[in-house]
């Protein structure tokens, strides 16, 4: 297990390097200059571009790029927050997104799991239909429509909640202003977890070991929670991966509608503003988050389901 973990960590670093290289290539190949909106004389433009070695051949630029990163120098933002080190820009935006998404995940996981179990236990009965309908409703309306409707009705028409997210942390108004965005964020994950768990459980409930469990006197509920759940958690991990990733990467749509200054729209903005160093940093950050979650989930496969021998070849 330890050997495997170390192997995977090395692989992770290698993957990161590949990503870094692709990011570099892709961004340098994009049309557009750092100095987009200025009518500069040709000589000045040359001088300014030389500052970022944009006049050198690609391979030389790549060498500078790798050298700088090896030294821990990721550069400063060019357009989004001028002259601020790129990681600082990211740090300043992450906490809000993290808070909102964590809260919404804390809400949605238990609700989703509970609803999934209920739906599976009462398969094709009224409870199941009610839950399935709600689930389908939550996943069927795009989040920007849902968020706009929530905002329009509950905040604008009835005035129960603030229209936008409050910018001054702490106090009741602040937490109050988080309810709508968190709700809008949680609906999708709740629905996804419920739906997936229901499906998995229904499959497991009808298997032999569940019959055995029932035979030894467990109730359906006990059997489901103690035996079936364990089997269903493995595929559920597949569903939870993207959720963990979105915790750190934020939600573009919700943050836009509720005016939350999070990390959600940063990538698109920096891409559009030709803020190359920031774009690279965000890409690397996103990759790191998703790679780490995948790693954690993979490693936990063996813990959740002992039948899985991680990394085993076909003959093992």
């Amino acid at each position, binding site marked *: 297990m330890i050997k495997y973990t170390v192997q995977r960590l090395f692989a992770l670093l290698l993957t990161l390097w590949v990503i870094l290289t692709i990011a570099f290539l892709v961004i340098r190949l994009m049309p*557009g200059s750092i100095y987009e909106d*200025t*009518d500069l004389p040709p000589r000045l433009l040359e001088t300014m571009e030389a500052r970022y070695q944009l006049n050198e051949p690609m391979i030389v630029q790549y060498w500078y790029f790798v050298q700088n990163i090896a030294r821990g120098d990721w550069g400063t933002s060019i357009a989004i927050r001028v002259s601020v080190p790129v990681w600082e820009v990211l740090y300043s*935006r992450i906490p809000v997104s993290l808070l909102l998404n964590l809260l919404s995940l804390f809400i949605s996981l238990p609700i989703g799991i509970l609803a999934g179990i209920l739906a599976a236990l009462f398969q094709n009965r009224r409870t199941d239909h009610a839950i399935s309908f709600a689930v389908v409703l939550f996943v069927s309306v795009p989040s920007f429509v849902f968020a*706009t409707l929530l905002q329009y009705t509950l905040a604008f028409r009835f005035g129960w909640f603030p229209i936008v997210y409050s910018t001054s942390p702490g106090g009741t108004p602040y937490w109050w202003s988080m309810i709508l965005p968190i709700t809008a964020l949680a609906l999708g994950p709740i629905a996804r977890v419920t739906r997936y768990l229901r499906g998995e459980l229904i499959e497991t409930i009808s298997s032999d070991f569940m019959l055995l469990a029932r035979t030894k006197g467990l109730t359906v509920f006990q059997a489901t929670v103690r035996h079936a759940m364990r089997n269903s958690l493995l595929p559920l991990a597949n569903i939870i991966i993207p959720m963990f990733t979105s915790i750190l990467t934020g939600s573009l749509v919700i943050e836009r509608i509720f005016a*939350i200054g999070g990390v959600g729209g940063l990538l698109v*903005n920096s891409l559009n503003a030709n803020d190359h160093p920031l774009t690279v940093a965000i890409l690397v950050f996103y990759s790191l988050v998703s790679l780490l979650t995948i790693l954690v989930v993979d490693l936990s496969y063996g813990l959740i389901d002992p039948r899985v021998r991680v990394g085993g070849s076909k003959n093992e």
Partner: protein
Amino acid sequence: MLLYIRKSARILALSVLFGTLFLGHAWGGGGQEAAPAQASVGDAPSETGSGMLRLTVGRPLETLNPHQQAATDTADFLNLITGKLYRFAPGPGGVGFEILSELAAAPPVPVDDEGTVWRITVRDDALWANGEPITAEDFLYSWQMVMDPVLLNHRANAFHGSQVQVVNALEYVVGDVSWDDVGIDLIDDSTFEFTLILPVTEFMLMNFFSNLSVSLVYPPLYEAGMNADRSTTNYGTDVDRMVSSGPFMVDSWRQGSEYTAIKNPNYVFADRIWLAGVNNRVIAESGTVMQLFERGEVDFVELSDADFQRFREDPRIIEVPARSVQRIVINLLSTDKPILQDVRFRQALFFATDRATSASVSSTIPANYIIPTTHVMNVDDGTLYRNTPEARAILTPNLGYDPDLARELFDAAMADAGLDTLSLQLAYHEGVEARRAVSEYLQQHWNQVFGGRLQISLQAVPSSQLAARLREYPNNNNAFDLGWTGTGHDDFNPVSALAHYYSGTARRKGPYFSDEYDSLYETVLAMPIDDLQGRLELIAEAERVMLEDASFVPVTQGLGFGLASDRVEFMSDGWSIALRYGWKWARIVD
């Protein structure tokens, strides 16, 4: 159809009238009229002002360093907090405007007859927001730093990029000469002497020094923020890394979501600032802003096309004419589609464009010209360039829409090229709804005018990429077929609208080459500054040459609309909002 032409014509007439009104009053000896009623708030503003003006912006603040800013929203905010030599303010009685000598002691003084050497004396009683005196050295430092050849700021071109061109400014930035050779000299404790390449008027110089890029930075913090090789400074990257010197000072800056300025009690004209502060909330979603406005939580909202249709007759509506003409650049270098090189084909597109309908589907005004209506020809009497007989004479009738002529030109060009049908691609800004609506309209309209022989496919492109694509022509002749663009210019100098098409300008949005045009432009730049009539004729001639060559098809001029809440009382007749200068002089009546 008739209905629409009439309506657009009305909008056009309104905006022109509006333009003439404010500028006409500005220098026409206005001020006799009574000042607006001010009883509700008191006769003079208090030390800290009263009432917070609540605005929204689309994008987060990028910096507080005036040497680095690029975005309009950022410029609006920096204009509140940085001190300048001169500043635009509402004219006496709220009519027209005047230029205040803010940190300068008096208007510039000419030294020679040509208008190329000027002296400006700075005030000796002005203070930074932290209470320290503002000195001439502070200005000298700020100007030297903006042009610094190692820092290479975004605004490094400040002393070279307009008609006001300081001797050796460009050469200093690119590292050819030393600072001593630059035409900015401090001749005593408080007087600067500027040596310029081109002649300018007093007004042009004051207008120039009201720019953000030549405003103040606080030297101790600018210096303290330098890195080891002095290639970058963290000045203005946070609230405590800068010091304000304008009418307001920075109070807070929450990353990505909100920033606020409060009244600066040390400001020279603090007795003219009524507001306690200005709050900017970052909200990208226009629907959200509209809801906040309707619930009275923000004081101003820019109206989308749909919202404008809804509030069309609301008395609170404010017109904001945009300062650029939206036009379709034709790639006349294209080797894939050589017909684009044919002037008849380009003219066919020009005459096939129904600008009245284009304007009505996008809530804009039709434009068959290149220099927008906002340009002032004569700053002494406020004459707008577009209202002069010379500028009117070059315009084609019926807003340049003549389908028969268009077909004739089209047929001739197509016959010579041996083409039966033609497909072209029109690139437009992704996310700009008005532009997409006009593009979709023109796609169908052109197809109808040319009897189905011209197929246009539309392509949405992120705006930075669109600009880049139009600029790619020196390296790639086929980067685009047709593409939208629009450029803003200095309102008080129509010549600035011409610079963009001059072949000596580096980063032009799209190819355009004409020796005739270039020589006209060079002539007008070098002309004696007081020969207004001569300049006017040459500018009109240059515009005519451009229109005739039809390397781009002007379609509309933006016309924004806004709603301001009842609690805001403007200290001027509306021009200031149009030019985005006016907020700071407003009052809040709760």
